[in-house]
């Protein structure tokens, strides 16, 4: 199942619908990295609210997405990690180091807008 990528002003939003296969995740990664330059986006939000399991591949992919997009000149925020998922991830040592996180989509947009304001 492909992840739709929405464009909202300066920001790209990718929302995970449910559990994704590793192939879908890789596809999302290349899709986002391509589109962020094509649309000249300054921020990317990845919404994982619907994910109730986060394995090591998924969390590594999320980290890679964030780091690659930074290299392409934009910011990434991961939003909507569930409390239980967050604690399970930490116990497995998957802490998404160096990646910005926010409570939900709204918070993620706030975070990016503040960041953009500071850059101006």
């Amino acid at each position, binding site marked *: 199942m492909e992840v739709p990528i929405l464009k909202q002003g300066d920001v790209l939003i990718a929302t995970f619908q449910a559990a994704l296969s590793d192939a879908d995740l890789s596809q999302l990664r290349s899709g986002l990295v391509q589109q962020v330059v094509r649309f000249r986006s300054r921020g990317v939000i990845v919404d994982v609210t619907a994910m109730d399991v986060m394995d090591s591949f998924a969390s590594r992919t999320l980290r890679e997405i964030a780091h690659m997009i930074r290299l392409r000149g934009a910011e990434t925020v*991961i*939003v909507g*990690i569930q*409390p*239980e998922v*967050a*604690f399970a*991830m*930490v*116990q497995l040592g998957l*802490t*998404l180091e160096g990646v910005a*996180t*926010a*409570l*939900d989509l709204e*918070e*993620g947009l706030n*975070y990016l807008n503040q960041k953009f304001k500071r850059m101006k």
Partner: protein
Amino acid sequence: MTKRESSAEATESKLREEPSELLRELVAHLRQNRTQLREEWVARISETRLLTAMTKEEIFAEATSVYDSYVEALETETFEALQAYARNLSERIIPRGVETHEVVGIVLLLRDVLARSLFAKYQTDFKKLNRILDAYEPAANRIANTVAVGFVQERERVIRQQQEAIRELSTPVLQVRERLLILPIIGVIDPQRARQLTEQLLRGIRTNRAKVVVIDITGVAAMDATVANHLVQTVEASRLLGANVIVTGLSPEIAQTLVTIGIDLGKMNTVGDLQGGIEQAERLLGYKVMALGEAEPN
């Protein structure tokens, strides 16, 4: 041959009947001497300084009902009523600080007082005394057992109830400003409580849409490596939900533990005391707090 057999059978059946008959005799004796034996018992109780938490009158009143249920249990050889009474009594006296050894002590005293009175009554007929004691002792022991077990069970129930209450009270997640939560932790943290704290905090972050959380551990004297690790994991999990965690009030011992297990301090935002933690949280949230006099006139 047949004669001897039948006579043996007769003695046997007589013996089989005897315990209940003896018990009946025993109960009659105890009823007859109720006042005297009860007073003797109460005297022995105050002599041995048991039940110091209760007044003399209370002891006498309780002793009377214990005595009557005791005799009733001997008579009917059913222990349900006594069990219920023991539980009820325990419920009343546990909050007043009566200890297990006292309850067991008074029941054993009663047993001794009654046994003495039997010795006195049957001192001339040793065989009869023996038989009476054979009937009396198992029943008396069972009564003592029933009362002691009832007391301990009641105590355990109270302890369980209190543990539950403590667990519920022990993890408040408080909102002090919009998007700012405080989690004061007091007392000993065991792994189970640590887990519960984490769950409540993460849920609290979500429902209050918190951006900053101050975890105050001034009231925690020490924690072992497992719990310290758990604390660090809680901090990281909160970050995944988009909340900043500030830990305040680390005692020297806890600081030592964290250093020993090699915590990456870059991940932990620590401030000396709760006040400093709240001030830093306000800065992070963009608040500026000042006294009214300091505010610039518009």
